[in-house]
């Protein structure tokens, strides 16, 4: 298969736009649903080829997304992934070959797609999304996520929301998020601060199903219970000083042997090495075609957004922004509008610049806030990312942070640093970026 693919003529070897004939049919014509401002023709073609798009994740979804974007006419693609290729990825992460095992996914995926689709530039970054700052994310027109982690989604979402500046339309970065689990998946579009964000939608993620600890400890019924017992209880009892590394085959083997022995005691069949690996690493069976469906949907939205209204897209303010897909019980899709939460901790109340006299004490500052009609705080607690400035409760923390009340603001907070204030009297929170005067 690999040989066939690689020896075939790369797309784009023809030196013309002929290869984009069908794409251009869409971009050079209007239809009944095109936006009246759609830059039909040259304008649309140019905005697509100049769009700089970031793909987060180069795994199951990421391979599909990179391939789709490159074949849809995007020419400047960046990709971030911190992972290296594992042999178990090869069944569906089709940009990787056996010889690539151990190499960084972002690197290999970028090289493969660049080679296969002439004219596309893919810039990989092998590392964490948290390594990059706002200046980095500011360069992109839109961001497409193919992640398996809720933590990473929450991080990029919070970053994009806080980057938004209402005086600068370029600071609005549409976020397209695809996600799959077995036969199920979702594609959604977030326009930071305008439409419902990932944090608003946090309850759309089902929490990981957990078995009561006492079931694991006393009456296991399933092979998975025996594995979780070995993972949570036996390891702690017998190998407390060794940090469990789920990628270390010796560690997995130890857990597997423990689980197997326990399963035999309780007459439970079915504990295997690969099941042990699956339970311990919380591997969710990935289905290649679910990834293909979700990635296709995500990339179509990216295409529509980048070409400026060729067709209505998911996430248009006031319209649907979330498409769920279920393939395990027959086949079902449902598209709806998930509404913004007014008290969302991320997009509910954006950080506003606030001018304060740096010689104010924290107490004077809080008293001043209490008098502002917008806040009317009664028992405010306040912190920066790294510092607890003042907490009303619990009593021990109140006592520990009380001395800060008498310190001057410039001893506690840096110029431009964000402070967050909560109060039991108000549902959301206030965020301010302090500017000293």
């Amino acid at each position, binding site marked *: 298969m690999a040989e066939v693919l690689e020896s075939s003529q790369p797309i784009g070897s023809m030196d013309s736009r002929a290869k984009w004939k069908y794409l251009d049919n869409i971009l050079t014509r209007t239809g009944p649903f095109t*936006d009246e*401002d759609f830059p039909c023709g040259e304008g*649309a073609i140019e905005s697509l080829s*100049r769009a700089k798009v970031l793909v987060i994740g180069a795994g199951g979804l990421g391979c599909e997304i990179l391939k789709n974007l490159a074949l849809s006419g995007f020419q400047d693609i960046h990709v971030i992934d911190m992972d290296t290729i594992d042999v178990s990825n090869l069944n569906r992460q089709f940009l990787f070959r056996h010889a690539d095992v151990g190499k960084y996914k972002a690197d290999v995926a970028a090289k493969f797609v660049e080679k296969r689709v002439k004219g596309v530039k893919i810039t990989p970054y092998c590392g964490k999304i948290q390594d990059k700052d*706002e*200046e980095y994310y500011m360069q992109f027109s839109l961001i497409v996520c193919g992640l398996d982690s*809720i933590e990473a989604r*929450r*991080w990029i979402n*919070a970053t994009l929301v806080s980057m938004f*500046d209402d005086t600068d*339309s*370029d600071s*609005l970065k*549409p976020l397209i998020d695809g996600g799959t689990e077995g036969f199920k998946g979702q594609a959604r579009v977030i326009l930071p601060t305008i439409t419902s964000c990932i944090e608003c939608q946090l*309850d759309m*993620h089902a*929490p*990981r*199903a957990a*078995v*009561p*600890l*006492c079931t694991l*400890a*006393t009456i296991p019924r399933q092979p998975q219970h025996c594995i979780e017992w070995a993972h949570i*209880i036996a390891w*702690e*009892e017998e190998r407390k000083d060794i940090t469990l590394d789920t990628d270390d085959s010796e560690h997995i083997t130890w857990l597997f042997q423990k689980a197997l022995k326990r399963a035999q005691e309780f007459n439970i069949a079915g504990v295997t090495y690969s099941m042990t690996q699956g339970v311990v690493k919380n591997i969710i069976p990935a289905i290649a075609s679910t990834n293909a469906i979700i990635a296709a949907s995500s990339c179509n939205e990216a295409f529509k957004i*980048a070409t*400026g209204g060729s067709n209505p897209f998911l996430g*248009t*303010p006031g319209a649907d922004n979330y498409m769920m897909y279920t393939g395990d019980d027959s086949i079902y899709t449902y598209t709806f509008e998930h509404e913004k939460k007014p008290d969302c*901790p991320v997009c509910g109340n954006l*950080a506003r610049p606030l001018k304060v006299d740096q010689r104010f004490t924290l107490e004077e500052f809080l008293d001043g806030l209490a008098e502002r009609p917008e806040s009317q705080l009664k028992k405010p*607690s306040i*912190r*920066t*990312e*790294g*510092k*607890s400035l003042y*907490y*009303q409760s*619990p*009593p*021990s*923390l109140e006592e*520990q942070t009380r001395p800060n009340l008498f310190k001057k603001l410039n001893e506690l907070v*840096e*110029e*431009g*640093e*964000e*402070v*967050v204030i909560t*109060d*039991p009297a108000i549902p959301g*929170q206030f*965020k301010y970026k302090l500017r000293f005067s």
Partner: protein
Amino acid sequence: MLKIWSMKQKQQQDEAATAGSKKKKVTAAQLRVQKDLADLSLGSTMKLSFPNPDDIMNFNFTIEPDEGIYKGGKFLFDFKINQNFPHEPPKVKCTQTLYHPNIDIEGNVCLNVLREDWKPVLNLNAVMVGLQFLFLEPNASDPLNKEAAEDLKINREGFKRNVRAAMGGGTVKGRTYDRVLK
């Protein structure tokens, strides 16, 4: 309608905006913990202490039950909350060796809201009240320490005596427990 396709490159960055942009921002998890701390209503039997007051995601929690079998004891727990909170529950461990049907020798706690019944709408108060409840009503049907659970089921009075002995730092069924009396 948004004009997202206006791709003109911004020539000058607003310097003031970038100056503040590299500073870290309070995370959604921290914010939620901050709210949960403000909403605590624990009474006099439960206390929190913060080894590092700037870090509200890791703290110690003490229960001193004023009634029930465990009255007179002082029980210590360690709370660790990660950035996935409240999607994931806090990680809670008892830091003492206790004779308790729902707490094992390693300090693991069998409390439904810490695992299978955790929901993001629950808060730290719910977890703490749940922990206290384990000392008021130890539960023999969810055993983590099987011997203690059997003991409670078969002979409640004998179990009470064993709890008192264990709390005093004594030995029960061949195992020595931590002294946890106030």
